[in-house]
């Protein structure tokens, strides 16, 4: 493995680790459930994404890289589905949102919901 690729991998892994930590910090600093899901999505996208891309540079054009691409693809499908399921369940069960702005409240909401 040559030096330049190792440096690229190192930088990407460290950057990915940084965003994982940031997601964790956000999870603590944000104040309610809905805000915290946003912090968690930093870990899901930037954190995991940068780390996987960094590892792809080590794999080169190989089966390993193809598998890493698939891992990233599955992650990009599953993490929004999970985030949406959590938030929709919380909202559906009446966990209050703290809002500064709300679009046309109750326009059709109660009838349809």
């Amino acid at each position, binding site marked *: 493995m040559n030096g330049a690729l190792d440096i690229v991998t190192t930088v990407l892994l460290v950057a990915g680790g940084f*965003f994982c930590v*940031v997601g964790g910090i956000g999870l603590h600093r944000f104040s309610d459930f809905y805000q915290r899901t946003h912090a968690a*999505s930093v870990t899901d*996208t930037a954190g995991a994404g940068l780390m996987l891309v960094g590892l792809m540079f080590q794999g080169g054009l190989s089966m390993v890289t*193809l598998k890493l691409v698939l891992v990233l693809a599955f992650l990009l499908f599953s993490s*929004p589905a999970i985030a949406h399921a959590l938030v929709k369940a919380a909202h559906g069960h009446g966990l209050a949102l703290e*809002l500064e702005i709300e679009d046309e409240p109750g326009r059709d909401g109660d009838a349809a919901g």
Partner: protein
Amino acid sequence: MRLGVLALLAAVWLSLSGPYTVHEWLIFAFGVVSVAFVWRLYVALDRAAGGDSEFFRASSWLRLPRFLVAFALKVAAANLHTTKLILAPKIELHTRLRRVPASQKTSFGQVLYANFITLTPGTITLDLRDDELLVYALDAESEADVMDGSMDRDVLRLEGGPD
């Protein structure tokens, strides 16, 4: 179309755990069974959803790279913005709930758009109803990324709508 998914599933299985010597009959049989099972599940779900998976035409695959670039750039920008919010000395959020039109023609396109919004940190889709998304955003800047409609257009373009 459904055969395309079958080919895709077979390719994924072959690349992940396919037998690399022809003699592993048992492993190969497991592969055939699992691919057949997942494909059957897909066909049932597709039928239940009204079979509008025409989204996956060959031309959509050709437009995929451009979409992925736009997607990666927007997710990266949203990540940087949310990181700033998290690391700010004082947490200052101006959360809001907005209705956003989803102008995609297929339900697959609308779901893709909703997931795109959820994946960009700072915005999350609460609901999808009557061609409208209910989007919860952390602050004005996160909200603007969705409200300017550029992500909607990215998905429309992938779907094959007007450029």
